[in-house]
């Protein structure tokens, strides 16, 4: 093969170009830790990575939603615990009422029940940063309004919220409803916390208070025969919601754990597709650098030699 004066520099230039490109790519890989950054560099892997990243973002969003719902659920649980105490105490008082109690004792019980009623209304209107907890979908409206008599006692409690609650997604195609309406007497959907088809906490407390205020034999009989059992039904509703919250929490925890595991798995898959093997990259970079140096040295040596130096 005849080698001309331009063929050697042209070949050397092309070799140096190729080695410089390889060096630049390997340096980028070492600096970024990634094999590629644009889809054209590895379209198959890029597609997979984009899809996995989108999936990871979506799963992270579900987990964030679960955190929000957990916060709400904690608020609801705490309110229900308070209501349970109210209910327990009201039940105790109702159970203690008998013909043997003096007027003064009944008046003291009345006073306490009145406070428990106030407390239960206060619980019913619990609000967190996302709105009223027991107003159903009318979260911007106070759940209950009260009508008081001249002496300031609550005469009736009216529900201003909605009987429906919002369902939320905690995983793909998995929805739950964390909210509890204050009132739902329809028998369908999520049962109300304070008012159900079986009765109303407020009505029962008002009846108990008024019965204690009356203090007649009939009143006592009514408390013992009706109000005690009504309060037990109210208690059952409360316990139902406590156990429901427990199962919701378990579902959310499971969903979050699954989501987290899936996110970790997607990160692993992404890593497998896109991450550069640093050791391999650095070894390759060394190889290419050595080749570049060798090409420069040998090129310079050969190009320096000419017949011109000898004539």
């Amino acid at each position, binding site marked *: 093969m005849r080698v001309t*004066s331009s063929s050697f520099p042209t070949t050397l230039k092309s070799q140096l170009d190729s080695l410089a490109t390889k060096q630049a790519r390997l340096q980028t890989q070492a600096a970024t830790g990634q094999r590629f950054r644009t889809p054209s560099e590895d379209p198959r892997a890029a597609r997979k990575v984009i*899809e996995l990243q989108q999936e990871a973002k979506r799963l992270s969003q579900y987990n964030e939603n679960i955190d929000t719902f957990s916060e709400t659920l904690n608020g609801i649980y705490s309110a229900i615990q308070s209501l349970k105490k109210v209910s327990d105490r009201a039940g105790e008082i109702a159970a203690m009422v008998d013909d043997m109690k003096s007027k003064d004792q009944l008046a003291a019980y009345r006073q306490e029940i009145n406070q428990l009623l106030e407390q239960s209304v206060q619980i019913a209107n619990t609000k967190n940063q996302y709105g009223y907890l027991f107003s159903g979908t009318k979260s911007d409206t106070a759940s209950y309004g009260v009508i008081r008599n001249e002496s300031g006692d609550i005469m009736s409690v009216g529900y201003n919220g909605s009987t429906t609650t*919002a369902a939320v997604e905690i995983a793909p195609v998995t929805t739950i409803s964390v909210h509890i309406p204050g009132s739902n007497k329809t028998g369908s959907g999520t049962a109300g916390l304070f008012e159900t088809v079986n009765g109303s906490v407020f009505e029962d407390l008002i009846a108990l208070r008024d019965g204690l205020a009356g203090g007649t034999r009939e009143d006592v009989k009514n408390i013992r025969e009706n109000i005690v059992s009504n309060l037990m039904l109210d208690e059952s509703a409360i316990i139902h919601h406590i156990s429901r919250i427990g199962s919701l929490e378990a579902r959310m925890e499971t969903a979050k754990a699954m989501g987290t595991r899936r996110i970790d798995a997607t990160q692993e898959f992404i890593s497998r597709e896109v991450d550069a093997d640093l050791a391999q990259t650095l070894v390759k970079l060394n190889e290419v650098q050595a080749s570049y140096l060798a090409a420069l040295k040998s090129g310079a040596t050969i190009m320096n030699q000419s017949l011109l130096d000898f004539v």
Partner: protein
Amino acid sequence: MARNSLQANQRAIELTGHNLANVSNPSYSRQRLNMETAHGIPVEYGIQGAGVQVTGIDQYRDILLDRQVANEGSVLAYLEEKQKILQFAQSMIGQDLDRTSSSPEGKAASKGVSGQMGLGDNLSEFFNALQALSSNPSSQAHRQVVVFKAQNLSEKFNRVDFRLGELLHDLNSEAVTMVDDVNNALTFLEQVGHLISSNKVLSNANDYTDKFHKRLEDLSKFIDVQFEFKPVASADPATGKSMEKLYLKIGGVEVIEAGDVVSKLALVIKDDKGNKVTRKDNYLERGDTVYVETVKSAEQFQLISGKIKAVIDSRDESVRGFKTSMNLISEKIKERINLEHAKGTSLPVLQLSSEYAGTGSLSIEKLSNDLKTGDRLLFGNGGVFTVSNDAAIGDQELNGTFTGVSPLAKGERAALTSIDFFDTAGDGLNVNERISGNPALLHAGMGGDAGNNELALSMAQIIDEKQEDLNGQTFNEALNRGVIGFGQELSSVEIQTLDQSTVLKMLQEHRTTISGVSIDEEMANLLVFQRAFQANAKLISLLDELLAISINVVK
């Protein structure tokens, strides 16, 4: 004899100098003086040698290789131009894969320095924001995030669309410039072709041939070229010898016949409606598309390779194709989100300050200042009040018509319904200004309850819907397919370019081994010619001495 030899070697030295002078000229083909033994002189004892004579100058050029280099160069130019355009377009799409930005911590660290989000990421974030809103539909902060993400998505789509539109415009302008370059090259080749034809007769066309091939290779980068010098019937007027003339085809159409340009490339400009238009100095307007044809035989004109074809192919198939598919996706997002959004309701915008009997104006307490004529206000019982005109929209009273069950009690709240999330007027994707100005108007629920999240949830779930108009793909699938498809095309062109570049390099190397100048070789030749020149000079000197002796003998 010695004089002829001196002249021959002097010419050889000059020619070697010519070769050496062009050692770095890639379009130059080395030349050699063709020396032959001069015809001998018959003498009584035979034929006596008469030295050397110059019969011509040979050029080391392989016409087959020249054609192949031009053809393969044309293919490489096509691929390189296409690669350049696709790389440009890919950077405009802005899909950068940044592994570090995939987690919230990495994302925060990457902000402003890397991790440019692609269209698919923006779309996911928009739907994720709707998902987050569904967890807390009354939250102004979550609503603001949805609006912000929708604006990001819109901006990304619009920016990509605008950039690709600019690229299309630039490609059309580039086509105009390329056509000018081709036509100028044709004129040049016509002139050089004539010079070659006339000088070939005198065997003196070597340097013109170099020029011709250089310009031909330049031309072939723009458009595929076939050429031939064919004998013509007419003889050279100066010498009377037969001549060869240039015939040249571009895109399969003969544009130089018997040495003369008979047709040139012509531009056809069509406006955005597809109508043929004329632009002063071919200065294109936005939306114009340029088509290239030859003045003669437009119907036969078909490009095979070269930059012009690359520009037209990339423009029509790759860039416009991608732009159209992105526009379709953005249109469908707009259509689908708007369809769903219109079913829902905003946060309450007013409440009745007194009972409403079902006719006349509403006495209201405004919860929002964004009421407009035509707004439909939905009450909890399903009744709808349509606002009649702006002028009557007051702080305490609202004119309009009511349909539904009445009376409505004091304190009843109403929410805005049926407004679009994305603007339907104008091009591109834009969030309805009313919603971006007041995110409370975003329809996240149904029935007007602040805590109702049905709409936010159903809109968030659109991300999983298969869209009939997108070949049964989800929005994300369609976007990813478009972006990755583009990357796939670029990747494939890059591989082809590399292959083609290797082919061309090998051909060029092969040609260099034939036509290239070697300094060492020329220097060696130079020494030979120099010594030959010296020897012949010595011969003359010797003959002169012999002549002097002979003259002296006579004296």
